[in-house]
């Protein structure tokens, strides 16, 4: 699964920064039928966790009401330079992850 994370290039300590992630995924609802008339089983990214230098700062659970190729923006306080790690899993148990570096100045 391909994902793209967007963070500001640099931040001051204590600054509230926007974190954006978009993950390539069909987010199958389970309500669709294929060309042969067979139902396409539900398969969505059901959970996402975000850690900032090891501490969990954000998590989410998704249903089929989230659009395909899920996009998410949330905020976090820039504390120290380091890394944000995003980890997610879909209904088929396929895991994905992405990381992004953040540099924080005083």
């Amino acid at each position, binding site marked *: 699964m391909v994902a793209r994370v967007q963070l500001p290039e640099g931040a001051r300590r204590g600054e*509230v*920064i926007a974190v954006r992630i978009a993950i390539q995924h069909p*987010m199958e*609802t389970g*309500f*669709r039928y294929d060309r042969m008339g067979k139902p396409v089983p539900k398969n969505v990214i059901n959970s996402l966790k975000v850690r*900032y230098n090891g*501490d969990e*700062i*954000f*998590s*989410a*659970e*998704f*249903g*089929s*009401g*989230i*659009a*395909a190729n*899920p*996009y*998410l*923006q*949330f*905020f*976090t*306080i820039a*504390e120290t330079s380091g890394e944000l790690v995003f980890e997610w899993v879909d209904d088929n148990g396929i895991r994905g992850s992405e990381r992004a570096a953040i540099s924080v100045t005083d």
Partner: protein
Amino acid sequence: MSSPTRRRFLSVVAGLAAAPLWPVHTAHAQDDPFAALVRKITGGAAVNSGRVTVDTPRLADNGHSVPLKVSVASPMTPGDHVRSIMLLSGRNPRPVIATYHLGPRAGRAEVATRVRLNGSQRVLALAQLSDGSYWSGGAEVEVTESACLDAT
């Protein structure tokens, strides 16, 4: 002949005529598609309206991907912050769209995403604060092409 059966029949008919045709509260419950679901989530706790804002386009051409932003008025301090935000749909086959867990380290209680909507409806966001209280706010969205009528 006035049989007991006939008398009982008449009394049942009279009883039906006196009773209202449906419980008085049903009409109100139908106005609010979220009532039962919200009660299940909160365990019956009171839900305050306010503090929660849902931003969506008033008119969405396409229900497959509707941009949506939820924000909650909160200082986001360790003592007073938003613990979670649930996004609920009034008309989707699965009413819970997503749940977000936040904390004081978020700095700002705001989440943006893109949702699928099965037709025009009201979308509700339900936030739980660190003191356990629930707040909600919503928005009406007109959807001209539903997400669930896709043939392909």
